[in-house]
């Protein structure tokens, strides 16, 4: 199927080729959307499954009136702080554990004990300590993102090419600049991999915390729209947070490719 059509596409003039390929690639999604539109209001009640047209008009409305932005900014702030903290502490902890035995002995057991706990199960505990709101969301995002970053930093710092270290030592690098100048730069690619794994996790953690314990943010908006029965609005907000998550992942991958020019 794909081979046959791609041959036919190659027969087209160059500028049209790319467009034709893109359209062909995304037809299935179009089919799903059209089916959704047809089913809504006929097979399934419109209130249960609002048609894409209703959702998209509400989406435009939310964006044009700017109503969504105050909540979106709060959500993004929580992600930025939580993820930022987890990168900072995760990298320190990961490299520290790899380069120093006492540090590893101290923290290893906590990491292996918390590793199998789904971090969203800690939302009630966060509510207990910090109440309902931004701090709770930040704490959950931080905890959820911490482990992938620690693990990647730890593995990378353990696997630093020993010839690099020897070469630097031979040239008289002291312990401290060894960390800054040799070990840390060598671990950057893996740290980026850890962050790449953490970004989607951050969004899941954020929405979980906002559904359970928040009165602001996109997750809260989704829940309350559902509760008051404004379903197009609920779907529109889901589309917005999904699009933001998608852009965040893609954007980070783009940044990573720019940063890691030497690999």
């Amino acid at each position, binding site marked *: *199927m*794909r*081979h046959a059509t791609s041959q036919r596409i190659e027969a087209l003039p160059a500028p049209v080729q790319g467009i034709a390929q893109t359209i*062909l*690639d*995304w037809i*299935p*999604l179009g089919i*799903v959307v059209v089916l959704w539109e047809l089913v809504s209001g006929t097979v399934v009640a419109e209130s*249960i*499954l609002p048609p894409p047209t209703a959702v998209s008009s509400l989406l435009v409305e939310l964006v044009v009136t700017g109503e969504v932005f105050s909540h979106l900014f709060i959500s993004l702030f929580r992600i930025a702080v939580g993820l930022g903290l987890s990168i900072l502490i995760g990298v320190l902890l990961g490299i520290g554990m790899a380069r120093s035995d006492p540090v590893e*002995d*101290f*923290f*290893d*057991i*906590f990491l292996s*004990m918390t*590793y*199998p*706990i*789904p*971090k*969203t*199960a*800690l*939302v*009630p*505990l966060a*509510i*207990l*300590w910090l109440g309902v709101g931004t701090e709770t969301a930040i704490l959950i995002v931080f905890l959820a993102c911490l482990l992938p970053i620690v693990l990647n930093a730890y593995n990378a710092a353990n696997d630093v090419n020993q010839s690099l270290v020897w070469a630097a030592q031979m040239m008289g690098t002291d312990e401290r600049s060894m960390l800054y100048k040799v070990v840390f730069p060598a671990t950057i690619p893996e740290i980026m991999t850890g962050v790449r794994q953490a970004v*989607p996790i951050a*969004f*899941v953690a*954020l*929405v*979980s915390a906002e*559904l*359970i314990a928040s009165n602001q943010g*996109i*997750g809260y908006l*989704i*829940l309350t*729209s*559902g*509760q008051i029965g404004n*379903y197009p609005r*609920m*779907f529109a*907000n*889901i589309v917005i*947070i*999904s699009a933001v*998550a*998608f852009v965040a*992942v893609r954007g980070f991958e783009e940044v990573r490719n720019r940063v890691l020019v030497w690999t």
Partner: protein
Amino acid sequence: MDVTSETQSGFDLSRLVELGKSVYSLVIVLVLWELVGQFELIHYYFLPPLSDIILRFIELTLSGDMLYNAYLTLYRALVGLAIASVFGVLVGVLSARNDLVDWFFDPIIKIGYPVPIISLIPVFMLWFGIGDISKIIMVAVGTFWPVAVNARDSTQQVQQNLVWAAQMMGTSDRRLLRRVVFPAALPGIITGFQIAMPLSLIITFVFEMVAGGGGLGALEIQGVRSFQSTQTYAAIIAVMFIGIGLDRGLRLIRSRLLHWT
């Protein structure tokens, strides 16, 4: 570790030292926790002493509450995961082997995978209510993506030489899939399960916290709402056991199934 010292004496000092090094920090923290709780340096509600939490855990376990709620959570998570595994492997393997299936599912996976699946909980409450069915379907939909993507990618990476060799020996298409492609892709498929397993628990817990209906998530949030923080802590201990148990279980299954690797 030194093998000779192990054979020499039953009492191995170096091993004991190793063990001490790896657990001392936990012991310190737990003792501090108990002391802080006993002297109420932090309000009882925020941090009850460890002994109270353990007592509460035992109490809830003996009364059967803990086991019943753990059963509810596990039932929802694992049934959902099982459904997702069947569909995910099917769609993933077929996508890798058939261009038409791949053409159809590729854009859907591209769009569906990055959706923070948790945000669909209110939708599932609307569609299927707040009962077990709703939670199971939600878990199935949420864990479908990692299973399907890993199954597809690992099937695509099956060495073409294996396929050619089998074809040369006259293996039919159907047997080829079952006997060659599927076993070769199995490590990647199981990796998909390992990614999906914690996700199934995450979805179940959050759904239980938002919608209630029993389960460990509901037990935790109930503890917060009724100002019985020991119940929340006790439920988290149970969550930890379940998480560790499932993680170990999957690793065991993996090493059993993949003993040839």
